[in-house]
Each structure stands twice: as structure tokens, then as C-alpha cells.
């Protein structure tokens, strides 16, 4: 599976991705300098680059980065621990599935972040509020995609399990879950995106926690290069979590 050709194509894809980002940055820089984009709305990428050492030293970015990353991690763990078993429950109990599937789908579109006052009342102005909002926002895609994967498991594979007289637990752990895993991971990745947006959004709204709070403060001070620099760290968390999830998926199901 890890042939030199495969590695080469992976390296080429990574180089192409990085090259594209670099090209966009250069274009934006050129457009701002040419006056096509207002520099009071979008700062020069070179200014953002210069702002990095400043926000790292003065704004304690690394600590805030870890704080947000920790919140995202907890939300992701909760999504996996609660979301996947809920999908299994809906898979096993057809009546409950038919009764609730539409509601779960509707939950995916709900602007949960607007319910932050309710969460503040329940959990206080703490990291728990932020994690729980992130978790609630990411739950629907995890349930829906995991359920989709479980339902798409080919009947013949389940019959192979039955022919080998697997116990219900073996049938789940050795056939259903591995078969559904690619779809489960798509759900987890989508859930992670939803959770992250909401976590940073709530940090911004309640002026508490990690990078969201920092973005709020820097925007209030109209420090645009610093604001965009802080947003870069949010993107970095997202990239790191995506890479970690892809590694985990490949480890759990090498043939993916």
C-alpha cells in the first residue's frame, strides 16, 4: 500500500496544496498593493507575517492555542463517545430511527451557537459551556453519517458473520463497525468542523477562553494583522485535527 509511487503522489499533492495557498497569498498581496482590495478591511499578508512574532510574544497565543485545541479535543472525544453509540442505537431500533431521523437532520442546520445564553445558565462562564456548544453543534453529522455507514453495510457481509455464528458483539465489532468506519470518519470530520466553528464563535461571543477571545480583543483594538494572524492559528488547529483523524482512520482501517 505504501509504494514509492503512492508516496510520490502524496508528496506532489501536498506540494500542489502549499503552492496554491502561496499563490493566493501573493495575489492578495498584489491586489491590496494595487488598491483593488481595501487595506483597511484586509491587511497585507506581509503585515500579517510580521504580526506573528508580536502576537506570539505579547498576546500569549500559544497558551490560547492550546486552550482552544483542548476544547476541540474534548468536543471531538464527546462526539465520538456519544455520537457513534447513538447512531448504533438508531441502527438497531428502526422505530426510533424513523421517529427521530428527520429531527436529527434538522439539528444539523440549527444555529446552536445562538443558544449560548442557555448554556451559560447551565454550565456558567466556563470552558465546559464552550465544549458543550461545540459538541451539540457537531453531534448531528456524526450521528447521520455513522448511521448511513451502518445501514450501507452489505447484507452479504452480515450473512458471512451469521454463517460463522458471530455473537452480536462480534458482529458489531468485527463486521459492522469496520464496514461503516469510512462513513463514521466522514461524520467525525464534519462534526469537528461544526464543533470548531462554534467553539471559536462562542469564545468570541462570551469573550472567554482561547483564540476566539483573542480574535475578539484584537478586532476591538482594530489590530487587523494581529486578528488575521490569530485566525491563522484557528486554521492550524483544524489542519492538525484533520491530519490526526486521517492517521487514526488509516491505522484503524489500513485499506481505506
Amino acid at each position, binding site marked *: 500500500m505504501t509504494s514509492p509511487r503512492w508516496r510520490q503522489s502524496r508528496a506532489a499533492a501536498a506540494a500542489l496544496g502549499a503552492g496554491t495557498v502561496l499563490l493566493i497569498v501573493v495575489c492578495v498581496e498584489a491586489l491590496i498593493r494595487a488598491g483593488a482590495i481595501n487595506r483597511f478591511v484586509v491587511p497585507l499578508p506581509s503585515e500579517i507575517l510580521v504580526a506573528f512574532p508580536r502576537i506570539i510574544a505579547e498576546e500569549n497565543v500559544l497558551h490560547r492555542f492550546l486552550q482552544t485545541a483542548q476544547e476541540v479535543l474534548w468536543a471531538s472525544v464527546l462526539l465520538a463517545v456519544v455520537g457513534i453509540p447513538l447512531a448504533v442505537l438508531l441502527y438497531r431500533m428502526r422505530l426510533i430511527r424513523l421517529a427521530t431521523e428527520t429531527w436529527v437532520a434538522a439539528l444539523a442546520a440549527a444555529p446552536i451557537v445562538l443558544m449560548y445564553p442557555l448554556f451559560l445558565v447551565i454550565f456558567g462562564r466556563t470552558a465546559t459551556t464552550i465544549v458543550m456548544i461545540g459538541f451539540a453543534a457537531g453531534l448531528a453529522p456524526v450521528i447521520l453519517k455513522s448511521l448511513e455507514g451502518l445501514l450501507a453495510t452489505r447484507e*452479504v457481509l452480515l450473512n458471512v458473520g*451469521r*454463517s*460463522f455464528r458471530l455473537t452480536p458483539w462480534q458482529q458489531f465489532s*468485527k463486521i459492522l463497525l469496520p*464496514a461503516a468506519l469510512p462513513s463514521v470518519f466522514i461524520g467525525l470530520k464534519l462534526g469537528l468542523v461544526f464543533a470548531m466553528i462554534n467553539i471559536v464563535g462562542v469564545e468570541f461571543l462570551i469573550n472567554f477562553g482561547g483564540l476566539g477571545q483573542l480574535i475578539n480583543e484584537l478586532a476591538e483594538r482594530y489590530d487587523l494583522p494581529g486578528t488575521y494572524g490569530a485566525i491563522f492559528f484557528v486554521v492550524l488547529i483544524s489542519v492538525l485535527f484533520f491530519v490526526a483523524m486521517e492517521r487514526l482512520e488509516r491505522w484503524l482501517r489500513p*485499506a481505506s
Partner: protein
Amino acid sequence: MAGPPVLEVEHVSKRFDTAEGALTAVDDVSFSVAEGEFVSIIGPSGCGKSTLFNIIGGLLGDYDGRVAVGQENIAGTHASIGMVFQEESTFPWRTVLDNVAFPLELKGVAASTRNERARHFIAMVGLAGFERRYPAELSGGMRQRVALARTLASEPRILLMDEPFAALDEQTRLLLGDKVLQIQQSLKQTTLLITHNLTEAVLLSDRVLVMSYRPGHLKRKVTIDLPHPRDPDVVASDAFTHYVAEIWHDLREEASRGMREQETRVLAEGKR
């Protein structure tokens, strides 16, 4: 060849409730398979072959009659029966070795022993050297051989196969037929094959049971008196051609009836 019966199917009938009323898929089917015997059930599409496969394999319940393995009546799946399915059934997330070792893993066999056993069956189906490959890297015929090796690794008393090579091209199918013949002769494996392929049935079997079109019942039992060990070149012999013609005579009538009924049904559905 004829030893004591290992598998007995007695007066098995199965009815399904459909929108058009009750449908009898299998009607009073009785036969037995002796130790080491290779029996094929052949019939036109829609004759209830796969229903019978599922009943004998224990995947389908709520039928009339009796299925017994070594005098013991069975209900549900049975450790003595190993099944090979028509559809591609390898686990895509497992390597060839891990696929074949699967039944041994369930039995709790130590990793080194089960891998050694799995390698033995992989070699038997002619896939030595592919142990670390994933099913996605293999052709359809190779994947079916993996599925066959996996079932053989469970060392079932009865190998039950439902048109395992139906989805493959004719040449691959013939070659795999030779492989099954080879394996069956070396293991003396009691086998029941469900098929709609005439040459496959005659080449591999000691007896061929011909099923009628709906409701599926046994129309005829043909003993294939060709020499053992059977060489794949036997297909060129007069005796082989005679058996194929004899079975086709019965089958053609049923297949024609099936085709006519299907056409009538399609026309009726079109009018609705």
C-alpha cells in the same frame, strides 16, 4: 463415494407473503448428501435455489420440513456448514491472510498457528504470494477464491456454495471450476453447490438435482457416472456431453416456462 448421509433435507417447503398473495418458493424438496459427495442443485432463475441455500445454511427460518446434519435437526446456522456466497463477500478492510484467518481468529487460535493454517488454505486456492494484499487489489475471481479459502479454513463438514462464480467471466469460471474440483478431490469435502451453469454442475458433481421453475421442487436427480479423480479434460468426452444434453432437456422446459411467466408479469405490470 456413497457413505452415510451427512446432510438431510426432508419435505422442505417455504412460502412468502407478497403483495400478490402467498408465493411458494420451495415446494416439498427432499434429498440427502453423503459424506464426501459433491451434489449440485441446478435450476432456472427464480426457482428458489437461493431460498434453499439460505434455508440449509440457517439464514432463513420459518419453513416447513426438516434439515439435519448427521441426524441432528438444525435450526439456524450450524458450525458444520460453511457457506460461500454468490456476492463478493471478502472483508475489504482485511488482508487476504486476515480474511482467511477470520474463522480461526473467532475460535481463539493463536496468531502464529492461525496464520500458518490460513497460508495453507490460501495456497490451496492458488493465491500464495497474495497474503498481504487487500481485496481491492485483487480481481473478482481472486476475491471469490479468498472467500472460498476463508470458508475452507473453518473446516466445515459440509461446504455450501451459492453460485460462487456466477459474476465471473466464462474463462475464469471454468478455471475456478477446475480449482474447486481439485480441492474437493484432495479434501474429500462434502459439497452442495447451487448453480445455474450446466457444465459446472456436470463437471464437479456426483449427482445433479434439477429444480423446476416456481414453485421450486426437485424434478429429477441425475447421477453423474464419470470417473474419479475427474480430469478437467472430461468435458470433451461423449459421456459428459450426454449428461449436459440430458439435464438441459429438463432444464430447457423449466427455463422457458420461467421466461414466459416473467414476460407475462412485466406486461401485466406495464398495464397497471
